[in-house]
């Protein structure tokens, strides 16, 4: 179709070159012949318009006479003429796209001026297109956007007419600011930003005087209604079903905040004034901040306090505009509820208080607008109706509260009056904050001191309590973090309450805050603490920020002492230990990203099925509990070291610099070397010597210059190695070494996967043994180092046992968990010395004990037939590398069977008849051993039990640990232990108790202050109630009317 029309055009053209003035003249001729759009010439016209564009752009780059001709013949007028004929979307869209292309590709200023000069563009802007057509809408808004990108101090005059006070580009665009189509909304925002960016005073005054109030108040109102929807979404959520919607709403809120921030950082002062006023008094204070304390009076609450904390954190993280954030922070930190209540009461009697504030230029206009408010429900659809009032938002919200009680104090249902009151409420809150910009600090503090307390601050601090959960605490920490990092907030303001400001010299810190942070850490250190890792990490951040003053640490000894107690041993498992360290150091917490995640808005959950990141939820199952414990340990250790200004010398356990690397040259004299042929997966072969070092195995080839030395061709960690036999070749071993991954969920990536072919069967066996032994020893060494790290006594006595499954596992699913089996060629237990347990004290997770009975071993379905099980005592264990946490899930725990005397946590409790799988099967070459590094039970009595049970107890078990008082401590008194866990955790008890003991004294010294505050704030809430009620009911009454 087009092809035909083009050939027609070209064919009839006088010039073969379509890029020429002549061709444009011909096009002009076509236009003059076809002034009326019909079905017949539609295609011709479209093609003509398209060609004209092309020639114009060519002319812009090559021949200026083209533009002269275009102007001279006033060809733009033809476009308009075509447009006005309602010629249908086909033509419309082509025209708009033509204009887009034209304006976008023109490079010369003068060409641009030509095109803009006779106001045709403005006529097109105001043309009433059929905006219900989504395609026309998209092209139209793109056209406006393209134009807005061309705006500068010169071109703005073509769009903004000072005399007629007309700025079609802007006013037409903002009509679509709440268009249902997201791309259109984005384009509108782009256009407004491009407009604000132009530094033209007249134009900006016009924007402020004529459009800012309605536009901004609409904007703010929509954000408000959005927030209410978000809150509703949180409140009505069941089982995290609303997460998808919630994350959209959160993202939308973030978009709004970023947009507001983008406007604010353009730094157009008088626009910012208007915007700040609207945001503070119609959104942030009345909705966000006020909701912090409103929860006692349900009818007064607007949004959930946790939602408002979350949103406020976002505000401080994103917006840094000084007047806005300072005022907001001031209310939160110094604000006083009486400001709300007293004034509200005041208003109840004098309805015209707002006059007091009417001096503010925009205030008047706001009031004026609200008198003729439209039906807000329709604002979305009827974009042309620009007047809206955020008051309506709060009103509507209040209407939700069903409190109608103290209505009587107000007789008038007059709308105007009501709105003043609502505004009043907002305005009041502004008094301490807004005046602060102009007044001195004395006045400010005087105003603050009038207040009985700081209800918002109190609420914030009180929410740090995580005994039941850390739902609120996480948000509070985020808020504090955000405020302390918000560049716009007055430093003195933060210092007054000793909120930590990073990188700043200081000599004191907020005792209240630090103690609360330590309490969070203590709770986190408890095995069943309801503190998520993100919360802990944030507490650590804030604590460091509080007490580390540029160079030295100013923490008081008493606090440090509290902290140290909380750094206590936890359930550790080697692979997870290293794995967690890697993933923690590779991904430090980013508070901004954290605050972008909607999932934390919902009550904390434990199940990974929600897909919520591990650090943002509670652990699920023993493996995750262990992971959590490990992380807690790392965080607290690093915090503790940093506070004491000590360098980290122990972690990570494997440091790359300590390892043998490829191409290292080693002295291999007196080393055991086994020659082998390495056949890799792709078939390449190489003759190498296998050497086993303390942590690594390496493949070397002889150094040509020095006898007895070798060049390392490959080196891999023994702990990450898997050895298995090759079915049809008794001389060969299959060896896979996985790369340690930092992502616990990633599939382990093999860095070596090859068959090693040895000279004969004997050498193959030797190699296999050596590797297996090296592997155990390497892991043992590391375990010892972990033990040292944890200050645990190294217990060389008990044997490490592979221990795959217990007779009765807590989770039935566990039975089907995939294990990875490791083959080993170990015969019997000749090298039992290599299997000594490293620990006896690290409780919980990995329990190793020498048990010779395992009648239930058949249960351990994943493990190989443990034929050798009968000949017990040959507990040949190998500690497997479990590169992924998932795999580590195979760690079983025994639940049942603890003698009633010792109540042990499930993970600690040795099963009465643990099944041990690891047994070498002399008959099969492939002998799989699944294993964990197992630790002896924490409870010595239970050990003894086992000792007595086991008939063939290794003599190692004779060196039983001294009964450890930690482990024999009475069951915990902590309510949480008994509440949540059927069997109280033995190991947790002691640390927990120590924590509290340690902390108590500190509290008694500092806690007084706290306690004083709380009752006050309570009183205030109570006082506030009636007044607020009245306010609400008034509003409600009016909205009913």
């Amino acid at each position, binding site marked *: *179709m*087009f092809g035909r029309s*083009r050939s027609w055009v070209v064919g009839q053209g006088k010039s073969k070159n379509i*890029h020429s003035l002549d061709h444009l003249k011909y096009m002009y001729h076509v236009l003059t012949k076809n002034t009326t759009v019909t079905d017949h010439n539609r*295609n011709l016209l*479209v*093609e003509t318009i*398209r060609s004209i564009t*092309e020639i114009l*752009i*060519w002319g812009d*780059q*090559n021949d200026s006479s083209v533009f002269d001709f275009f102007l001279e013949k006033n060809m733009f007028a033809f476009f308009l003429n075509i447009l006005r004929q309602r010629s249908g*979307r*086909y033509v419309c*869209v*082509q025209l708009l*796209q033509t204009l*887009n*292309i034209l304006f*976008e*590709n023109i490079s010369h200023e003068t060409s641009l001026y030509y095109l803009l000069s006779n106001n045709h563009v403005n006529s097109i802007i105001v043309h009433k297109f059929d905006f219900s057509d989504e*395609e026309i809408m*998209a*092209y139209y808004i*793109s056209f406006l*956007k*393209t134009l807005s*990108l061309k705006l500068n101090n010169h071109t703005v005059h073509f769009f903004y007419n000072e005399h007629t006070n007309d700025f079609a580009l802007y006013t037409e665009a903002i009509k679509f600011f709440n268009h249902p189509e*997201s*791309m259109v*909304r*984005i384009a509108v*925002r*782009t256009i407004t*930003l491009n407009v604000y960016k132009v530094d033209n005073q007249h134009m900006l005054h016009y924007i402020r005087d004529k459009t800012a109030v309605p536009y901004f108040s609409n904007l703010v109102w929509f954000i408000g209604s959005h927030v209410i929807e978000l809150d509703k979404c949180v409140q009505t959520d069941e089982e995290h079903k609303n997460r*998808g*919607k919630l994350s*959209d709403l959160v*993202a939308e809120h*973030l*978009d709004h905040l*970023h*947009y507001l*921030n*983008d406007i604010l950082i353009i730094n157009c002062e008088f626009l910012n004034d208007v915007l700040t006023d609207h945001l503070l008094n119609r959104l942030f204070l009345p909705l966000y901040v006020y909701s912090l304390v409103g929860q006692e009076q349900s009818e007064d609450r607007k949004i959930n306090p946790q939602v408002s904390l979350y949103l406020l954190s976002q505000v401080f993280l994103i917006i840094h505009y000084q007047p806005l954030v300072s005022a907001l922070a001031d209310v939160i930190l110094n604000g006083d509820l009486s400001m709300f209540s007293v004034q509200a009461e005041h208003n109840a009697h004098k309805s015209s208080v707002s006059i007091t504030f009417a001096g503010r230029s925009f205030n008047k206009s706001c009031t004026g607008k609200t008198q003729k408010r439209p039906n807000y429900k329709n604002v979305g659809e009827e974009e042309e109706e620009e007047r809206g009032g955020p008051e309506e938002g709060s009103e509507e919200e209040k209407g939700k509260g069903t409190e109608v009680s103290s209505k009587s104090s107000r007789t008038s249902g007059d709308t105007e009056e009501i709105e003043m009151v609502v505004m009043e409420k907002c305005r009041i809150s502004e008094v301490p904050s807004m005046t602060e910009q102009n007044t001195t600090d004395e006045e400010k503090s005087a105003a603050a001191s009038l207040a009985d307390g700081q209800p918002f601050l109190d609420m914030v601090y009180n929410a740090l309590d995580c005994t039941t959960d850390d739902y609120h605490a996480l948000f509070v920490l985020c808020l504090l973090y955000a405020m302390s990092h918000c560049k716009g907030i007055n430093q003195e303001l933060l210092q007054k309450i000793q909120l930590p400001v990073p990188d700043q010299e200081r000599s004191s810190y907020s005792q209240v805050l630090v103690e609360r942070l330590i309490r969070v850490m203590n709770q986190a250190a408890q095995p069943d603490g309801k503190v998520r890792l993100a919360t802990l990490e944030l507490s650590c951040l804030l604590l460091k920020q509080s007490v580390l003053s540029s160079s030295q640490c100013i923490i008081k000894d008493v606090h440090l002492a509290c902290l140290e107690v909380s750094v206590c041993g936890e359930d550790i498992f080697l692979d997870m230990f290293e794995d967690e360290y890697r993933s923690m150091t590779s991904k430090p917490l980013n508070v901004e*990203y954290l605050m972008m995640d909607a999932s934390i808005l919902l009550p904390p959950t434990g199940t990974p099925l929600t897909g919520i990141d591990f650090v943002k939820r509670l652990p699920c199952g023993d493996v995750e509990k262990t992971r959590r414990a490990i992380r807690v340990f790392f965080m607290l250790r690093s915090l503790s070291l940093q506070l004491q200004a000590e360098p980290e010398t122990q972690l990570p356990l494997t440091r790359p610099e300590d390892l043998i690397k490829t191409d290292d040259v080693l002295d291999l004299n007196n080393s055991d070397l086994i020659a082998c042929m390495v056949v890799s997966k792709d078939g390449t072969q190489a003759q190498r010597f296998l050497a086993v070092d303390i942590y690594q195995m390496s493949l070397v080839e002889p150094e040509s210059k020095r006898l007895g030395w070798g060049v390392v061709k490959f080196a891999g960690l023994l702990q990450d190695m898997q050895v298995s036999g090759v079915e049809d070749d008794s001389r060969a071993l299959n060896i896979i070494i996985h790369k340690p991954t930092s992502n616990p969920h990633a599939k382990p990536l093999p860095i070596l996967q090859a068959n090693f072919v040895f000279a004969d069967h004997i050498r193959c066996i030797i190699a296999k043994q050596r590797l297996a032994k090296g592997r155990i020893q390497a892991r043992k060494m590391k375990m010892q180092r972990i033990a040292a790290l944890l200050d645990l006594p190294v217990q060389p006595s008990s044997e490490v046992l592979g221990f795959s499954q217990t007779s009765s596992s807590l989770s039935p699913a566990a039975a089907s968990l995939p294990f990875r089996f490791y083959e080993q060629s170990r015969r019997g237990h000749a090298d039992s010395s290599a299997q000594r347990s490293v620990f006896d004290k690290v409780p919980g997770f990995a329990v190793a004990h020498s048990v010779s009975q395992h009648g239930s071993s058949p249960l351990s379905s994943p493990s190989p037939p443990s034929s050798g099980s009968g000949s017990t005592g040959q507990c040949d264990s190998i500690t497997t590398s479990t590169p992924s946490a998932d795999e580590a899930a195979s760690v079983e725990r025994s639940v049942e069977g603890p003698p009633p005397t010792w109540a042990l946590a499930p993970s600690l409790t040795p099963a009465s008849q643990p099944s041990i799988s690891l047994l070498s099967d002399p008959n099969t070459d492939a002998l799989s051993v699944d294993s964990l590094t197992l630790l002896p039970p924490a409870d010595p009595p239970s050990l003894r039990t086992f000792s007595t049970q086991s008939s063939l107890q290794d003599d190692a078990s004779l060196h039983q640990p001294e009964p450890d008082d930690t482990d024999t401590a009475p069951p915990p008194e902590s309510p949480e232990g008994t509440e949540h866990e059927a069997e109280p955790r033995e190991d947790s008890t002691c640390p927990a108790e120590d924590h509290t003991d340690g902390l108590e004294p500190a509290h008694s010294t500092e806690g007084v202050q706290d306690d004083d505050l709380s009752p006050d704030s309570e009183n205030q809430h109570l006082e506030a109630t009636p007044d607020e009620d009245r306010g609400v009911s008034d509003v409600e009454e009016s909205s009913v009317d």
Partner: protein
Amino acid sequence: MAYAYLFKYIIIGDTGVGKSCLLLQFTDKRFQPVHDLTIGVEFGARMITIDGKQIKLQIWDTAGQESFRSITRSYYRGAAGALLVYDITRRDTFNHLTTWLEDARQHSNSNMVIMLIGNKSDLESRREVKKEEGEAFAREHGLIFMETSAKTASNVEEAFINTAKEIYEKIQEGVFDINNEANGIKIGPQHAATNSTLPGSQGGPQTGGGCC
């Protein structure tokens, strides 16, 4: 007008890599590339057919708006597909891919299909980035990869359509929540091929891009 789905795309990448030319080349082939004339556009729409279904592609270029964080953020979020473009004759545009990708992953919904495009493949003599490098980058980050030329129109069609196919597959697999328009996918007014005869005759012109 009748389409089964509407997919919104964005085009990202350094300035000057030819994003807007790719867009125009795809949406309006009548602008034939001429060696001394570069024409681009920031928005375009076109109808394509996948699996017998009419699918409308809307492509939004974000050029010139990078200075506003709110804008780039929102664009990413509203798109179902993204074309990440670099210029094979300028190594720096390739080096910046990581940053672009990080941004995209951070702000977009996790299902967004990203296609890596090495543009200007016609300028073989000035090539600075090997095709293998692009392939490796794509493999590493799980992207689809293609070298294109807006000048010769080579692979342009394929780039946009393959991306659409990938999105379409994800819809079939139920990965995308198609009822949530925030994902950049919209279900057509009548989700039916029954009307295809009428739109068929007018389909070409109606795309505004003249895709026929």
